[in-house]
């Protein structure tokens, strides 16, 4: 390994892991003094085209409390056919199948390049994937139409043997019975009545002996011992039927009088969906996909009343404790989320409306179950349509990029303890692409510390699989080897980890407190690792491995993850949701958006996210993860308006205009969820998306003082990066701090 940078990159590619510190301080006390905690970002199911799963089961450490998986770090006695667990030091006999083992004939899990390995488990009945659509019918006609089309389209993307179900809701909740023949049949529930899982199952006739009538209906009662098959049927059997059914879906027929919101029973609908799956397919992979076009307005989980004159809660209301439904609704959805997670199912939320839809209250459904959360303005937008389509994209093997019912076990060396996890998981039950870990080391020792992540999950091909990642890092004594440790600092990972901690805190604490905490951490870090003379701000320097970190923090402070100003509670929830689950690169984009500049002066180049980059003869492309903004400078915009791009002699201008569009397309293609695509120009109203992100180095306050003609002044009172850095330096060198 040449540099740490390469090492880090290599590790991430292989194991999907990034640690804030790649050399670990050897004591707990020292670890806390490092300011940035020792933690890692893990992508448990990172896509590994080069990693075919092995067709056998892992060998486990025989100590019941350990059960670590045999890995390359284990010491092996080939003659005695023994291996020592590197976590608990238990000596284990190889199983008989490993009889032929020798130095030259090693199983894959012992080879160093298989620090991450995936096992396929053959036992256990394989149950098909389940997709349960929960569809709001209180939509505008075109919205509903668009949604219906998307749903119909999605049927063709599902594996033929996957089970699908349909629940629609408005004022009432309907659970549709999907059968191949006869008239369509649905069970209807009142949208205002909270039902227990038991009641729901009784009413749906899912309790076996109680409802002889149900057997009546069918097709082959014997073949399907579960009455539940009435509601969840294999796609290949009923896709025509379901397509028709979706086609005939009507808007909620109950009249909505002037000045009222439609009555929307989202809470009950979700509750029934959860109850249905809970009763019929516990612990098998299932997605509940909630499509909603507005806030729940009645029943349990209601977020706002149906009187339009009372607006849905804002951050202001929440601060003032004025959001009267919030707590109760949140509790309802949390309860559902926990049950869902316990069953190994997940809930997606696709919320498309101009106003808020209650994501704040419902976020836990997606957060705790590893579901997706998509927010858009309308179902009739490409944002929704393509995002939704992308859910069903396949990987190189032709399998869905989703897995179900995952559990993540973390084994650590004795010196390490797990402090907690932030990510789309509930305790002991996790699924999702990315988890951050936060470790502490109580007992420092020499040598290497090791961590093993064991992820059990149901692959989208319905197989059970286990992925094991084992990693090790060196210990170092802080006193003597601070340089080492410093050099092994991964500032990107650290920034993201700190950001996540911050966001995590922001969920429960007041915004300003979190900012203060972040600032304090940053100052402490600078004090610890900066090189400076006391009380001399100008002398302050940071090493390369730390140099970008303050800037990340600056942008983080301004990000929507911590700032709620100008964001609705729903938007904040949405942003935070995605921030907590994307991998490092994406997370960094979220913290500090990327800005590219296109001009005649040369090839496109990344430029500073700074107001000074906004020049009249440039086209800017900004990627904030959630938005892709193309901004035409003043001159460019004028040229375009004049129509130069259509003149053959100015073809180069046409190419210039096209270049950012192509690049944007590329990003759009790859990104999930689809970002909002904004094409604007100087003075355009949408330009605000750009202006709010860039560092306000020029504002109305200092514009002329700088005396430059370049750049665009930002009308803000926010501090600029320069000011921020100045203050940071001052505080870092101050002995008072």
């Amino acid at each position, binding site marked *: 390994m040449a540099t740490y940078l390469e090492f880090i990159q290599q590790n991430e590619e292989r194991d999907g892991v990034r640690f804030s510190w790649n050399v670990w301080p050897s004591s707990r006390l020292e670890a806390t003094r490092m300011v940035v905690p020792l933690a890692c970002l893990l992508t448990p199911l990172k896509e590994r085209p080069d990693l075919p799963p092995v067709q056998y089961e892992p060998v486990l450490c025989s100590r019941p409390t350990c059960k670590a998986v045999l890995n390359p770090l284990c010491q092996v006695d080939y003659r005695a056919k023994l291996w020592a667990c590197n976590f608990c030091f238990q000596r284990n006999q190889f199983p008989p199948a490993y009889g032929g083992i020798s130095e030259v004939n090693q199983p894959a899990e012992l080879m160093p390049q298989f620090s991450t390995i995936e096992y396929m488990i053959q036992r256990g009945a394989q149950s098909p994937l389940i997709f349960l659509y929960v569809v709001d019918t209180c939509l505008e006609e075109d919205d509903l139409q668009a949604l219906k089309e998307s749903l119909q389209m999605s049927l063709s993307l599902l594996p033929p043997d996957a089970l699908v179900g349909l629940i629609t809701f408005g004022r*009432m909740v309907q659970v549709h019975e999907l059968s191949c023949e006869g*008239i*369509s049949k*649905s069970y*209807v529930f009142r949208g205002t*009545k909270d039902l227990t899982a038991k009641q729901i199952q009784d009413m749906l006739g899912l309790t076996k002996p109680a409802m002889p009538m149900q057997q*009546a209906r069918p097709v082959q009662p014997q073949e399907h011992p579960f009455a539940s098959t009435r509601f969840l049927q294999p796609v290949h059997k009923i896709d025509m039927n379901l397509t028709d059914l979706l086609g005939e879906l*009507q808007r909620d027929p109950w009249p909505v009088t002037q000045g009222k919101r439609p009555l929307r029973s989202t809470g009950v609908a979700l509750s029934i969906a959860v109850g249905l799956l809970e009763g019929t397919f516990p612990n098998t992979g299932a997605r509940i996909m909630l499509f909603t076009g507005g806030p729940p307005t009645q029943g349990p989980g209601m977020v706002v009343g149906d009187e339009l004159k009372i607006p849905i809660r804002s951050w202001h209301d929440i601060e003032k404790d004025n959001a009267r439904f919030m707590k109760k609704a949140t509790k309802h959805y949390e309860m559902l989320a926990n049950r869902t997670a316990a069953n190994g199912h997940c809930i997606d939320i696709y919320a498309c409306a101009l106003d808020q839809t209650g994501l704040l209250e419902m976020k836990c459904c997606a957060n705790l179950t590893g579901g997706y959360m998509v927010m858009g303005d309308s179902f009739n937008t490409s944002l929704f349509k393509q995002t939704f389509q992308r859910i069903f994209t396949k990987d190189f093997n032709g399998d869905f990029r989703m897995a179900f019912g995952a559990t993540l076990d973390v084994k650590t060396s004795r010196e390490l303890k797990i402090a907690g996890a932030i990510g789309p998981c509930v305790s002991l039950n996790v699924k999702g692409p990315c988890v951050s870990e936060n470790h502490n080391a109580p007992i420092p020792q020499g040598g290497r510390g090791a961590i093993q992540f064991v992820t059990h999950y149901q692959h989208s091909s319905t197989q059970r699989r286990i992925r094991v990642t084992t990693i090790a890092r060196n210990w170092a004594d802080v006193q003597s080897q601070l340089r080492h440790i410093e050099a092994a600092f991964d500032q990107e990972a650290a920034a993201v980890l700190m950001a996540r901690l911050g966001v995590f805190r922001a969920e429960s604490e007041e915004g300003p407190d979190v900012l203060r905490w972040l600032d304090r951490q940053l100052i402490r870090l600078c004090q610890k690792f900066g090189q400076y003379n006391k009380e001399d701000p100008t002398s302050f320097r940071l090493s390369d491995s730390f140099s970008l970190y303050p800037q990340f923090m600056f942008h983080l402070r301004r990000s929507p993850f911590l700032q709620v100003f100008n964001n609705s509670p729903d938007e904040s929830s949405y942003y935070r949701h995605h921030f907590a689950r994307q991998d490092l690169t994406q997370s960094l984009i979220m913290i500090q958006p990327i800005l590219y500049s296109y001009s005649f002066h040369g090839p496109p180049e990344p430029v500073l996210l700074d107001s000074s980059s906004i020049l009249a003869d440039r086209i800017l492309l900004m990627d904030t993860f959630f938005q892709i903004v193309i901004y035409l400078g003043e001159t460019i915009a004028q040229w375009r308006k004049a129509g130069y791009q259509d003149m053959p002699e100015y073809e180069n201008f046409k190419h210039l205009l096209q270049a950012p569009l192509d690049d944007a397309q590329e990003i759009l293609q790859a990104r999930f969820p689809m970002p909002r695509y904004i094409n604007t120009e100087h003075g355009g109203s949408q330009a605000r998306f750009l202006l709010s992100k860039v560092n306000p180095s020029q504002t109305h306050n200092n514009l002329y003082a700088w005396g430059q003609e370049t750049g665009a002044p930002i009308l803000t009172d926010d501090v600029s990066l320069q000011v921020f850095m100045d203050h940071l330096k001052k505080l870092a060198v101050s002995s008072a701090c």
Partner: protein
Amino acid sequence: MSQQGYVATPPYSQPQPGIGLSPPHYGHYGDPSHTASPTGMMKPAGPLGVTATGGMLPPGPPPPGPHQFGQNGAHAAGHPQQRFPGPPPVNNVASSYAPYQPSAQSSYPSPMSTSSVTQLGSQLSAMQINSYGSGMAHAGSGMAPPSQGPPGPLSATSLQTPPRPPQPSILQPGSQVLPPPPTTLNGPGASPLLPPMYRPDGLSGPPPPNSQYQPPPLPGQTLGAGYPPQQANSGPQMAGAQLSYPGGFPGGPAQLAGPPQPQKKLDPDSIPSPIQVIENDRASRGGQVYATNTRGQIPPLVTTDCIIQDQGNASPRFIRCTTYCFPCTSDMAKQAQIPLAAVIKPFATIPSNESPLYLVNHGESGPVRCNRCKAYMCPFMQFIEGGRRYQCGFCNCVNDVPPFYFQHLDHIGRRLDHYEKPELSLGSYEYVATLDYCRKNKPPNPPAFIFMIDVSYSNIKNGLVKLICEELKTMLEKLPKEEQEEMSAIRVGFITYNKVLHFFNVKSNLAQPQMMVVTDVGEVFVPLLDGFLVNYQESQSVIHNLLDQIPDMFADSNENETVFAPVIQAGMEALKAADCPGKLFIFHSSLPTAEAPGKLKNRDDKKLVNTDKEKILFQPQTNVYDSLAKDCVAHGCSVTLFLFPSQYVDVASLGLVPQLTGGTLYKYNNFQMHLDRQQFLNDLRNDIEKKIGFDAIMRVRTSTGFRATDFFGGILMNNTTDVEMAAIDCDKAVTVEFKHDDKLSEDTGALIQCAVLYTTISGQRRLRIHNLGLNCSSQLADLYKSCETDALINFFAKSAFKAVLHQPLKVIREILVNQTAHMLACYRKNCASPSAASQLILPDSMKVLPVYMNCLLKNCVLLSRPEISTDERAYQRQLVMTMGVADSQLFFYPQLLPIHTLDVKSTMLPAAVRCSESRLSEEGIFLLANGLHMFLWLGVSSPPELIQGIFNVPSFAHINTDMTLLPEVGNPYSQQLRMIMGIIQQKRPYSMKLTIVKQREQPEMVFRQFLVEDKGLYGGSSYVDFLCCVHKEICQLLN
């Protein structure tokens, strides 16, 4: 006019002034002198046709006194005196009565109450068990103490004595006097005279009707033939009577002591015959035009067909009264104890040859109403001051005539537009109601019909679901519509259910219906709005698709449990959600035992029968249904229930909502497809098509001095004046009882205005107004003269049937008997000419009251017998509560037609015969109908050509009784018979199931229950016995 009366005095009685009748007359009741007046016809006694016109005096000798005994005896000897074979074993009679005396007394426990006698209705309704003592006390105090019992037993026998000639004397106009209990002396005395008299009577009297009605050509022969069996029966029968009417025959023997009692029974032909009364009225008024131009005129009987012309009073089709002349004071009313009541059938069907109701539209100003009492403009309003003001006929308030309504008066003070405005010249008309009369001041939506089919196992199994679905397809084509409209405005919806409910979306743009299952029966709700209630024509294909699929959909169902209250709730909620009134058609078959509101358990406890707790059987099991009914009425939701029970289903509970919401209850016991199919389908079709008004409120206004106090029918009352009905159809009647609250004046009379605010089938809000003016009189005789027995029975039946919910049946029966006696005694005392106390004198208008009353008492509701199914009793109770006069008349006194005497060339119905076994003959074929059942009774020696003609089989033995439809044989007999059955069925609200009964086969038992003049199978006295009983009561009262 109507002064014909039966006057039958015993030979021994004192001759009465003016009685010029010879004793022989009495034997037949036939007084030739009476033939002129129509009503007095006595049936079998044919010659009796006792139509006494006041002026005509029978030529016979004066009535024989007791001293004539010898003479009578001589007569007896000279004539075939089987009737009076000899003195009865007096001691026998005495001993049989003796035990009952104490009980009689005990039933009148407290003569202490001195309050005046109240009328039946109030007694029944007001009295609870603990209070009935006082009620009885009225009766007791009003009557002679039991110990003084009249010579009751005598009367029974006395009737056999040759009747006295009617007393045409001035003193007893309009009354008929039955002979008092004859002594042995009388018997023989009278009898010798009888035959000679009879023949002259027969000749001089109205023989044609007699011979026509009476299959045996000569009454005399009949009589003779009839006797022996009766004699044989008499002993037990008497006992039966006593059982039923404890106290009815008290103390007789003592008084009888003198004259030996004849063992013989009354001659059934000698007692008033309903058939005779009906035929007389038909003969005199049938086919004529009856103009309602006079206040207080007495309309033809319900059994008489005539054309009614509205000339200022409502047609008797709409309103019939117990009396058309009210007593002026409440004292008089109390004295007579005749209930003052009107039976109102506001939506009665009008035959096509009478003009339909005019519709008055005053535009936005709405109907003209009295400012004070809010009565609607009607012929009773008196215009004054040149037409600028009018005085309300009800409250006498003087109102300004609204400017738009002004019109000048002519020389007699009548508006010039009198004949142009229906509301000024007609008794019945309709107003278009303005928005003020609508719920929430919004015009109503057209009503909806929701069909709710029980698809539990039994209904699937017996093919009912399939049948209903199949037939609905054609029946829905005939949804009722306004005449001028092309398409019915009524929308339809469908629900099936077992223990969960299935709603169906049948929106026209769907390719397939959609089913929505609601399993939350605990709190049922409507899962859809749009697409549930649809226009049949528009959604026809989807609906047909649905109806085709329903039977298959549940074909494999083995669900046995059902819910019921949630079903009604669902329908009601659906109507509520659609904001329209409507009607639910529920097809249900079992006791709803599934866990849900309104769940019922089997509580059919025969041990309760004949106890004070018997009323519980008639009460609903839970109050869920009561509150549900209230909700339904509040939302204009009427419930019609078709029940197909195979065992106890608790009709008392299930039927409550249909009853209170103006719906109809149909019940088909042990439904069998091949037998009951037609009856059910006819009922269903009829119910769908019938004229109906929804969301109705009825208000009965009266002129000052009296007011409506009690209402009976398929109604709900939230206050004391507004009668609320979720719906009211053409067969439903409301009986209204009136009470005095002041004196009435003979000049102004008693005016009644019945206004019904309702929503038409096309969703128009209307007011239907019926006005009726009655006379008032301070003479009891006028009151008695104007009574209508059919209406009286309707009232008595409803008030008694209402009372069964609260009172022991025994008390109710006693009250009925007592009131009957009291009414008659009052007449006897105040209106009839003085005569021997032992004479039974009936007012002409109430001649058949005893027989009808007996029928009422024998109805299974009032008969406490464990053999009768509780459900059947609850069912009949409910049916009667909404019956109009015509229906109740037929129901209590079935029509019995001899078929073997059919004149195949005539389109007339054959003349009916009295409902008694003695009228049947082995050679005869008879058709009996009571509005619910129809029987074709075949005598063992029925003429083979008739059997061939009707059944197309060679002989009696070949007749298959397992059919409910007669085969269509191309033969005049068959055609004629089926036509007759069609005529009988016509206009009846319920389709009658035909049962074929062969004489002396087991099913005959059922048939016999309908021979209401005989002693009942399960108890209930024969007409003769009852008459005796009543007579005794009367005698008791008179003493």
